[in-house]
């Protein structure tokens, strides 16, 4: 028998008892809507993580100054003045390292006119912008000569700009950081929140030498708190970690068997874990939602069983007219399939609409992807076939005469 007339018959059969068909579909509809919505929310979360990762910069390392051990008491990282600007310059020569910048962080009050704002000030080199893939929204960066000369120049993050300048253009203006005036050379492009929720735009960059000598002062000449590095590529990351460690040990003249006086930390690995967690969460949400799809499928099976019983006489007539067992089975399978697919179609709209509503009302990021819709469709079709098979088979195995006499 041909699929065409069977499909139209399946469609007619569904139309014959509209309220029942609708209620049967509702299970699938809600299941699919739940899957689509959950996947949309999951994808939204994943995308924001991905954006955060992208804003942080890719393939990142942090080299933290040592954890000094004094008489068996180990202090936290960053407390030993073991890293220098020269270390950063030397490490950048490695082929596996794309860019490297020293950082001396601190906090300072920054004042412009009647406004003042407390923010974190990072003493660094122009390479920092490269490491973090951070561009300027206005002005120009300070350069190596500023670092050499320890000039009082600054780049302002967007949050700082907003709080000090409002709508005014800060480039070329002079702000006071601590007690000294600094020339604003440029403003940094907005980066948004980091993964741990910190506002990355609430920062001011100044030359590392200025920070060391003029702003914070450093009890150890030329030392910095940590270095940030970007590996040349994702593949080069393990090699970069090895080589940086080797070179630093060499530069710090550490004998074999002596602990490192620094810590190399792979930030991307941390970030990847975060991304992985989000992905797992989104999959789990989808999996939980698909349980409701399963329940919808059982609803279809239930109604199809009722339908087979109700239409036993019709099955008998069809048998008398020459329907083979396979024809009867296919007919009821198609009916189950039509029910689940139409339910699925409604569910996709409901789910996508619900997701968009949720994002509008609850302000959570949602992304409805084609793949999630396709997946929901395939699962719904699978549910229709799987749960339709038992009733369809029951119909196919009816004895023609018994079916005909049933009425």
């Amino acid at each position, binding site marked *: 028998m041909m699929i065409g007339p069977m499909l139209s018959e399946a469609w007619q059969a569904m139309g014959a008892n509209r309220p029942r068909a609708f209620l049967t579909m509702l299970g699938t509809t809600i299941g699919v809507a739940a899957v689509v919505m959950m996947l949309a929310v999951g994808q939204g979360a994943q995308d924001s993580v991905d954006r955060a990762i992208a804003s942080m910069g890719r393939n990142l390392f942090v080299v933290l100054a040592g954890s000094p051990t004094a008489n068996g008491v180990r202090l936290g990282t960053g407390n030993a003045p073991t890293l220098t600007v020269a270390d950063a310059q030397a490490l950048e020569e490695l082929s596996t390292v794309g860019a490297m910048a020293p950082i001396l962080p601190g906090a300072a009050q920054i004042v412009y006119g009647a406004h003042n704002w407390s923010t974190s000030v990072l003493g660094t080199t122009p390479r920092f912008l490269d490491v973090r893939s951070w561009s300027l929204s206005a002005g120009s960066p300070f350069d190596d000569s500023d670092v050499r000369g320890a000039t009082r120049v600054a780049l302002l993050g967007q949050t700082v700009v907003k709080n000090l300048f409002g709508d005014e253009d800060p480039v070329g203006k002079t702000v006071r950081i601590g007690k000294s005036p600094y020339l604003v050379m440029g403003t940094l492009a907005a980066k948004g929140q980091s993964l741990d929720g910190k506002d990355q735009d609430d920062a001011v960059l100044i030359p590392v030498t200025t920070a060391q000598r003029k702003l914070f002062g450093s009890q150890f000449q030329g030392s910095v708190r940590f270095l940030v590095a970007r590996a040349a590529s994702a593949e080069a990351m393990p090699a970069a970690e090895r080589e940086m460690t080797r070179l630093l040990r060499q530069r710090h003249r550490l004998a074999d068997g002596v602990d490192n006086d620094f810590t190399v930390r792979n930030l991307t690995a941390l970030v990847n874990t975060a991304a992985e967690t989000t992905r797992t969460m989104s999959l789990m949400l989808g999996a939980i939602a698909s349980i409701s799809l399963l329940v919808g499928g059982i609803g279809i099976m239930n109604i199809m069983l009722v339908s087979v019983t109700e239409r036993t006489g019709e099955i008998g007539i069809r048998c*008398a007219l020459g329907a083979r067992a396979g024809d009867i089975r296919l007919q009821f399978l198609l009916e189950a399939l039509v029910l689940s697919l139409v339910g699925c179609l409604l569910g996709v709209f409901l789910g996508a609409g619900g997701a968009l509503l949720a994002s509008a009302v609850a302000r959570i990021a949602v992304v409805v992807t084609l793949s999630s819709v396709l997946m929901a469709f395939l699962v719904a079709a699978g549910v229709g076939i799987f749960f339709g098979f038992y009733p369809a088979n029951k119909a196919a195995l009816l004895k023609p005469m018994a079916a005909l006499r049933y009425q």
Partner: protein
Amino acid sequence: MSVAPVIRLTHLGKHYETRAGPVPVLKDVNLDIGHAEFVAIMGPSGSGKSTLMSILGCLDAQSDGTYLFEGRDVGVLSRDQLAGLRNRVIGFVFQGFHLLPRATLLDNVALPLVYAGVGKSERRLRARQMLERVGLGAHTASLPDQISGGQQQRVAIARALINRPSLILADEPTGNLDTRTSQEVVELLRRLNVEEGITVVLVTHDPGVAADAKRLVHLVDGQVAHDGPALRRVAGRRPS
């Protein structure tokens, strides 16, 4: 070499299994029905007429004996082969018409063609022609409950004829019809028999209907009690 009869039943028996043991319905039925015969089967209720019809129509299997259809042993055919036989060679007409209530008359008539794998345009064409032939060409898009019982039975006959069967089995085709429409339906069957040589086997309670047949088989208690030419004059003289 003689042509095999359309139907040859040899020592055919049928019993139904119940909890109280087997209940015999047909006992040692021997019956030959040749090409282009018009046979009426009569008998009291419970005499096994409908069971015999369902076995003849390959809707049910006998318990004992053999059933040769056009010389072929039906007992060895598979379910699907039997379905093919019902589809292409046998046409059914039932007392309750048995049309699909949601399908139009055209779709009802065309349904056997669907199972025969005939394409859509040819299905529609042939179904339309067949409906015209039974005088319902104007009702192709109607639903079964929109026409009268006699018309529904004519649709059922059109459906039975659509695949050009060699045998029509009619199980009390006039049982639900008044006298006038009964006559129309029987006349239609008789014409098919005479003009196209289709073998017709008809179960009826109505002696007037049976009188139109060429041959009359009486079943009593699952056995053939009488098998001979239908007696028109006897039926005509019957006091009523």
